[in-house]
């Protein structure tokens, strides 16, 4: 911190609201791409597990190893192949969502009571109909719970992507706050990240309640 400089300058925040909103936009865009792509892949993998339960162990093991790789390492490991690009950042971010999403989608589908499945089959549902009309609606709260964790985790990880030039709120925290010794930017960045996570989390929770009006809130 530069000598004599106040710890937090609210006037800087007010003067830079346009910069701030641009960084929030960048941050959200990178997050949304990662979560959507991660969800599509995880959903496919979960369907694979539904059909061939044996592949679950290996899928969990591989996604678990990916999850254990530190974000700073995973963000830079693909630079030799994909350069300093959005793709490099997304490869890392998508990898991290897999273990969370696959586990919750599979757990959700497996939590459907056997009687319900039997009843659906007995009523003449085909496998696909049963999946879409019976199993997925019942599994939805757990799937959305996974989506919430994955999204909040991703919002946090995107801050680190500033190191490979992705901007976002990490730019405020690191490039302005730490490297130019301007704590106001760091604090603003962290507070906005926390606010963003909270808002997105609540929005997904609200969405889940809209989609499953029959389910009482059972998330923690």
């Amino acid at each position, binding site marked *: *911190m530069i000598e004599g400089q106040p710890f937090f300058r609210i006037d800087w925040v007010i003067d830079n609201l346009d910069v701030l909103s641009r960084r929030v936009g960048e941050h959200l865009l990178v997050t949304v791409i990662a979560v959507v792509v991660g969800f599509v892949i995880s959903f496919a993998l979960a369907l694979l597990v539904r059909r061939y339960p044996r592949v679950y162990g290996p899928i969990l093991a591989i996604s678990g190893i990916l999850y254990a790789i530190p974000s700073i390492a995973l963000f830079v490991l693909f630079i030799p192949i994909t350069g300093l690009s959005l793709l490099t950042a997304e490869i890392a971010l998508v990898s991290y969502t897999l273990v969370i999403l696959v586990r919750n989608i599979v757990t959700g589908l497996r939590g459907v009571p056997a009687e319900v499945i039997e009843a659906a089959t007995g009523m003449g549902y085909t496998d696909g109909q049963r999946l879409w009309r019976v199993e997925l609606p019942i599994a939805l709260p757990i799937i959305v719970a996974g989506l919430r964790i994955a999204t909040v985790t991703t919002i946090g990880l995107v801050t680190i992507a500033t190191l490979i030039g992705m901007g976002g709120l990490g730019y405020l925290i690191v490039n302005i706050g730490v490297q130019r010794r301007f704590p106001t930017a*760091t604090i603003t960045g962290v507070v906005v990240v926390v606010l963003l996570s909270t808002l997105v989390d609540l929005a997904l929770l609200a969405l889940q309640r809209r989609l499953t009006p029959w389910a009482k809130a059972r998330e923690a």
Partner: protein
Amino acid sequence: MEFFGEVLAWYGDPANWTGNDSIPVRLWEHLSLSVASLLAGLAIALPIGLYIGHTGRGARLAVAVSNIGRAVPSLGWLGIAYPISTGLFHRGGIGFLPAFIGLVALAIPPVVTNTYTGLREVDADLRETARGMGMREFQVLTQVEVPVALTVILAGIRVSAVAVVATAPLAALVGGGTLGSYILEGLALSDEVRVFAAAVLVALLAILTELGFAWLQRRAVSPGLARPKDQPFAEPAQAAGPGALAS
């Protein structure tokens, strides 16, 4: 293939094995910072978690701590620790100290959450039985609650340890050295070989930490409490809520 040759050459380069910027020095910075931060984090988090879990008092605090822990990104802890540390100690507050403060803050929430949750999940009858046998409160805690909750507590420590080792590279941003300084230098110089070589070391270190603590977790748990091997992996009750990865 040529690239991997260069990476191997980087590991073998004698220049990377002597001096202030050598692999042993950076590795030592990385490990000492991680161990110090984890120990300090445990010294703060374990008593809090044990107290809240045993007495049930201050459960709201535990929830608040774990929520904050989830919401603030790892980079955020270091970013905030930096001005605090330099503000308090001026030039002396650059380097080890801000990194240490940030990593301690990062290490606390998972341990508090899991210790608290682990103790809360101990069967109430078990606790009553222990009291009925004449155990003092402290004995109930150390001889019944902690052993039964040990897997969950150790899982929290494991999450913290891996998070600390994985985040320590960011200490390079605040002058704390570690293997992360190769990554930052490499990025600044567009030296992909150095970035990649260091990233591999960081990844190995984190995976070794994960495996080491997983092994410890299996070893430390009383055989009577170990779950049978054929039990399904998924636990809906845990997977449904935040913190599903903590176990």
